[in-house]
């Protein structure tokens, strides 16, 4: 069972369990749990997985280009620089590096274009090709590029740090709202038999859980900066 399933199950159990506690209606509780599980698995988790890959590759790209340029300026060997830059970056890129070991240094660096899939890496390739064909000082040639890469990395780290703090606030606020709804049942326990049969009460509680689910999905989309993609929709990537 992967982490997507575990996170979705936890959220579904919290949603469904809290709905059951608030309404005393097992059907409403199970239905809420199932809808939570389905919605988070279909809309939320793909966003998180995609964001994680983008985030990891951006970080790897930053480290790779920096190490490569520094190593190249010292050794003047593309092969050696590639091996130095790729070391310790991550299992996926290291195994990719091993699978293309028969290629030349420049070909290996070019091969990674599809792996990183960013314009800044294409720009790095362009600078590297200028260095290979015309020579010069690689540090001077790529100084602007390295500055841009550092700026992107620092900016993304600042955003990630601020977002982590915000995530805790978001979870705490929803937890408090959830506690209020659940404790309503226990606070009004003497009258709960009346509430159990009230359609108005049931509709209000379900609206609360629907809002919570909607906000979780929207939050994930905003947090990751990615648009929600509808499952099974065939989107043409350019």
């Amino acid at each position, binding site marked *: 069972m992967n982490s997507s399933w575990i996170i979705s199950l936890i959220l579904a159990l919290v949603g469904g369990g809290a709905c059951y506690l608030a309404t005393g209606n097992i059907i409403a509780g199970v239905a809420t749990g199932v809808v939570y599980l389905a919605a988070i698995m279909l809309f939320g988790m793909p966003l998180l997985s995609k964001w994680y890959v983008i985030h990891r590759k951006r970080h790897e790209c930053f480290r790779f280009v920096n190490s490569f340029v520094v190593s190249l300026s010292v050794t003047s060997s593309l092969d050696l620089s590639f091996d130095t830059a790729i070391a310790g970056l991550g299992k996926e890129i290291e195994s990719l590096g091993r699978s293309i070991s028969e290629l030349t240094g420049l070909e290996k660096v070019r091969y990674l274009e599809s792996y990183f899939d960013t314009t800044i890496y294409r720009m790095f390739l362009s600078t590297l090709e200028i260095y290979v064909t015309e020579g010069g000082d690689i540090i001077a040639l790529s100084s602007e590029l390295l500055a841009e890469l550092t700026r992107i990395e620092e900016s993304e780290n*600042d955003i990630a740090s601020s977002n982590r703090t915000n995530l805790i606030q978001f979870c705490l606020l929803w937890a*408090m709202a959830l506690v209020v709804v659940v404790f309503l049942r226990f606070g009004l326990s003497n009258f709960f038999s009346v509430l159990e049969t009230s359609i108005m009460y049931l509709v209000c509680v379900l609206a609360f859980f629907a809002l919570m689910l909607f906000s979780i999905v929207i939050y994930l989309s905003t947090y990751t900066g990615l648009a929600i993609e509808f499952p099974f929709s065939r989107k043409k990537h350019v």
Partner: protein
Amino acid sequence: MATIRKNIAILGLNFQKELIFYFFGILLLVGAGVGLWLVQGQIIFMLVPVLGSIVYSYAYFSRYGKRIMRLRREEEEEFVRLFTYFQVYLNDGYNIYNALSSIVPFASSTIGAKLEKLIADIDTDKTIRPFIEFGNSFEDIQIRQVMLSIFQMVDQGNNKAYMDQFKHVFGRLSDQKHELHKQKRIERVQSMATFPLVGSGVSMIILLAALADIIGGVMNGF
């Protein structure tokens, strides 16, 4: 209505299709109001479509303006990204023309078309006009200043003083846009805290609904 129609056209959307979606939403709200009225037997529930329609109409039609603003902001951010690459090419010894041509493959279709037009215009018109036209296609006045400094580099043949001037003008714009982008992204996530607050509001409505039901039950002899 004319502004809305214009905004829809700018975004490349179908006006009739947008109106159909709008009226479908209104219909759902009216249906919900009528349903609640029939179930609960109280006409007060017809307030749901009335108040809901006001909020829904505002949210539905105001999003076009916001999307256009976002589109313009994204174009300006792309300009900064592309001209950072332009600066890299200049640093690598390219001339202005070659540096401009080299950044076209990195551009989106919209900015790419503008860049191609700029390059084609530079070929035929050696005045400042192509640069001004390109700069005018963006909202931010600083972009025009950047384009002006690029023209001065062309005019003076990559003179170092003009190169430094370009770096200074562009650096200021770039810093500003990057900071704005960072702030926007952080603010967007921070604004999500509104949802739990609305959730707390709903929990209060639940409490009121529960109390109303209990009081109703007591009045009717439980």
